[in-house]
């Protein structure tokens, strides 16, 4: 292969450059922990509404561009970003910039897969908000493209590697340790609801079954906001802050909290490369447009492990995780005597790669990536399918198709509105 002349970015990423830096200590270059400006990664944020503003402070990379289809959001983000930050309305213009290394995607979820894929094809690494995608087909495609293009991808949920796991009051690692060393036995049942310390926020993120059309505000490019979603007349409730309540853009409380809650469960159950085979929901009839509260979702893996989502908060006796040998629940209460002492004697879970910028520099897969992220996002989308269809479903986790249910399979792959396509 002919060797190419190195651009700035290529130089920064080159193995040869790394070898040089490994010989010259970083503190010699610029003091302890100092990142010389020329070595600093750069980023753009696409979607700078509520959550997008949070992304201004995420990571150590230098912000160069922000993008939004709402002028108000864009103006605010440019002001907060500082003098080096340029604003864009169309994300494709951002992807065209060769000086941007990482693209953050805190848009509504109906854009996640499309922009992630376009970013990967444009040679960017991706920090994407949860949920990874709005359908199983979309997140599967993101996984394919990321791996094919050798891009680094992370999802913006983190409970599999840091922070206390909501009501459990401890990080997930001690529970993982108990599970992987067989203290709870097998198979396991995990219950996720308010009594275990996980609030599904179903009331907060419900859509309105009847929306009267409203004039589109001048500041908003509604057509670009909708993007691949089917056209529906504008109503403010469809968009900023409340979009989660509509199936076309997200999945209600499941969309908001699902990956936060279920990705650690998938990690605990060691199911990063598979999905449940059965799922069933107990729910009032769902509206075709608006996502509404549900009572219960049960998902079962081929080996008998189960995940129960308690939407109406009635499972007040169920532990968070239980097996034939014991259970662990809210506040790390457990049926196992001296659990913490026992855990000390057992091997730790394998270490995880939790520094995204280091992942980008060293091209090392991030802890929550396109592969396990696709599977945990599938948990969310399988639950959504069960809630929407209102009947028991069977799923083939290898083919990633529902068994003998055409309507369910049509929820996996949904056509996008032209010109958008993945």
């Amino acid at each position, binding site marked *: *292969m*002919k*060797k*190419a002349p*190195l*651009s700035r970015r*290529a130089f920064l*990423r080159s*193995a040869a450059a*790394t*070898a040089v830096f*490994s010989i010259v200590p970083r503190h010699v270059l610029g003091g302890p922990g100092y990142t010389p400006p020329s070595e600093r990664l750069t980023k753009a944020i696409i979607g700078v509404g509520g959550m997008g503003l949070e992304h201004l402070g995420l990571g150590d990379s230098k912000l160069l561009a922000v993008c939004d289809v709402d002028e108000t959001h864009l103006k605010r983000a440019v002001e907060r970003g500082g003098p080096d930050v340029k604003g864009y309305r169309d994300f494709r213009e951002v*992807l*065209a910039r*060769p000086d941007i290394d990482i693209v953050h995607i805190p848009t509504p979820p109906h854009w996640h897969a499309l922009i992630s894929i*376009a970013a990967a*094809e*444009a*040679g960017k690494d991706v920090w994407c908000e949860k949920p990874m995608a709005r359908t199983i087909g979309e997140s599967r495609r993101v996984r394919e493209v990321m791996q094919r*293009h*050798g891009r680094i991808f992370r999802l913006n949920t983190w409970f599999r590697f840091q922070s206390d796991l909501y009501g459990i009051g401890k990080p997930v690692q001690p529970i993982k340790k108990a599970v992987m*060393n067989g203290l709870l036995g097998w198979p396991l049942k995990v219950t996720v609801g308010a009594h275990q310390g996980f609030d599904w926020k179903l009331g907060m993120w419900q859509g309105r*079954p*009847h929306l009267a*059309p409203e004039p589109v505000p001048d500041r908003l490019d509604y057509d670009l906001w909708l993007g691949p979603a*089917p*056209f529906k*007349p504008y109503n403010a409730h469809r968009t900023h802050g409340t979009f989660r309540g509509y199936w076309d853009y997200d999945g209600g409380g499941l969309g908001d909290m699902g990956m936060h809650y279920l990705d650690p469960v998938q990690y605990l159950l060691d199911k990063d490369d598979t999905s449940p085979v059965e799922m069933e929901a*107990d*729910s*009032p*009839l*769902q*509206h*075709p*447009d608006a996502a*509404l509260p549900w009572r219960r979702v049960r998902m079962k893996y081929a080996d008998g492990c189960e995940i129960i989502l308690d939407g109406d908060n009635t499972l007040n006796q169920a532990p968070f995780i239980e097996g034939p040998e014991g259970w662990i629940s809210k506040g790390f209460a457990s049926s196992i005597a001296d659990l913490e002492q026992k855990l*000390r*004697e*057992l*091997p*730790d*879970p394998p*270490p995880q*790669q939790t520094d995204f910028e280091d992942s980008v520099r*060293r*091209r*090392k897969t991030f802890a929550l990536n396109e592969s396990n992220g696709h599977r945990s996002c599938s948990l969310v989308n399988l639950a959504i399918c069960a809630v929407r*269809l*209102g*009947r028991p479903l069977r799923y083939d986790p290898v083919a990633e198709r529902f068994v003998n*249910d*055409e*309507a369910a399979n*049509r929820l996996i792959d949904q*056509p996008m*509105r*032209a*010109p958008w*396509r993945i």
Partner: protein
Amino acid sequence: MKPRFILVHTAVIVGMLLRAGPVPAGQPDVNAAIEKMPAANAVDAQAVFESILQGGAPAISAVCDQVRAPGDGDDHKARYLLGGLAFHVARSGATAGREEFSKALLAAIQKAGDAGIKSFHMGLLRWCGGAECLAPLSALLGDPDLTEPATQALLAIRAPGTAEVLLAALKKAEGGPAITLVKALGELREARAIPLVAPYATHADAEVRHVALQALADMIPARRQRTGTGSPRELLRAACRTDEPLERVLATSLLLHHARRLAEAGAKAEGAALCREVLAQAAAESPEHLAPAALHALAGMAGDQALPDLIAAVEHPNRPISVAAMRTLISMNRPKARAELDRILTRGPDHLRLALLATLDDSTGAAHFNAIAANLGHENPEVRAAAIRAMTHPRGLPALLAYLKSENAQQLPDIQKAILTIAGPDEMSAIAAALAGAPAPARTLLLDLLGQRRATGSFNAVFDLTADTDAAVRLAALKALGGVATPDQLPKMTRLLLKTTESSEQTALQRSVIHVSKTMPDAERRADALLAVLPSASPEATEAIVGSLSELGGPAALRAVTEAGAGEQENVRNAALKSLADWPDDSAAEAMLQASVRATDLTQKVLLLRGYVRVIRAGALPAEEKLARYRAALPVAPRPEDKAMILGALVDIKTMDALRLLGGHLGDPALREQIAPLAVIVACADGEYKGLTDPAARPILSAVLEIVKDDNVRARVTAQLAKIE
């Protein structure tokens, strides 16, 4: 509910009823069915669905008729019902009902005048439509307002003949609808559309060009039409030569996509040739980031024949390309690929070894175990550290332990992390055995591991090292005893404690003794081991022991601390009083109060009082008893803030007696500002607590009202006063 909404809502319902008219005999009451929406559960919903389906097309149409144009009233219940029906009829084995429902939707689409209503019904056909939809939906493709929803429904249904109707529509379409159709034909990989799509590949609008190129990338014509002007390959190649950077990147990506489609169609050699074309282009100029995708595709198409390309790419100075080549070699899992990876690990330059070790760490290094282990002896510490991280699987333990024994063993934190990931109870004997002959830093690490893992079978090995000649090893051994010892080994440890004179070692061993003592099931006996050696302990050791007895508790320990607190030796006395102030339960309350009375040092007096209040509050005494204890402590409090601290505990006791005690201090200028809010908490309602309504509370609350200034607090007091007769 707003009157205007009620009016509109009522008008809509009345209108619906008038339109519906009387229910014909044998027909379901559609309006009643709609009013049951949303059904509370699946059983109720299915009952409604079945009733509608039993009514056949007339009943379904009657529901469809109640869907309103956007902005023309509230039809959400009808939409609930139709949405539910669309999924219900599409369940397995419901063919007849599905087709009838689908046809009724098609009739409703034809009947409706509004595009919004038509779009809604077409949206439902996405879930339940079948071949019967093909002709009716194709008739809508020419309507610019309906091309998109009709195409989406057709794409979701994918009935035989879909490509033909889209092709026919594209021949007549222009503008936005044409783009929709081009995109759809691409998704269907319809090669017959190539001549129709090709002109859009050079359209003036970049977005249109991209849609066309995306579609062409999916279309594989017959062999003789695969090259030459107008072929997808040539159109994509032409697009790759544009000066516009993003468009060039995306077009190149699409050329690769086309290569994959060629391979899927059986033309693997053609696909591989295109991959190499992109690879060469990516290596020579931008977009170099597409090289990983080209390598990935090439490996899938060419197998072993792609090895030279991959091996060359491993050496590429661009790290993403190099790492992608490594990943592809790993995923190929072929003997030649494995041999090449082993060659890099054993003979490659440092930067390639580092990258590969990190990549193997991501996946599994088991297939390359020996080659990875060889890097433990590498001269570059970064390579050694990467090798250690790649060895975190059970086979790695012997190699890591052997490496620890070598004189140049470094990266101890990395080794420790790796071993903690591998080692459980079954591996502890191997770790203890490795102590012998290991250099001092390695022994320190191993001792720490044994302690962390509570390797009780290693007590003797660890205890022996408490006499090691190396101070760091001795200290590590003393610390590790806290993990590896059991209560029956406490006497041996406490005898050692009496002999230990070096301060840090004494502290470490004492901590270990306490740690092991705490594992004793009988809480009252936990201090026995330390108390047993107290009479023969030096003054320094006595000070340390009595200072730590509060961590263990129990009556014997309390007696020892109380006595020491009244002793002659100042250091021991101070340590004992501090220990007393930290006592874990209210068994020490009286001793604390008496010691506080006797204490002449203000700090000691206050600490003991705080300890007293802490244990009383946390204890299980009845409320009136607690109140009496607090009352007894008040005269001992040396300063107003100490009195306030004691009175602060009264917020747990919401009784008139507590309020009276607080009220008694409202006149004290030094305390009134602090006491008034406490009285509010005790006396005023909050949540489920109803507050005190005894008339005796009135003057106290009135006095509180004179003191508090916050409006919200004053409102609470006033509200409570209103409840008092």
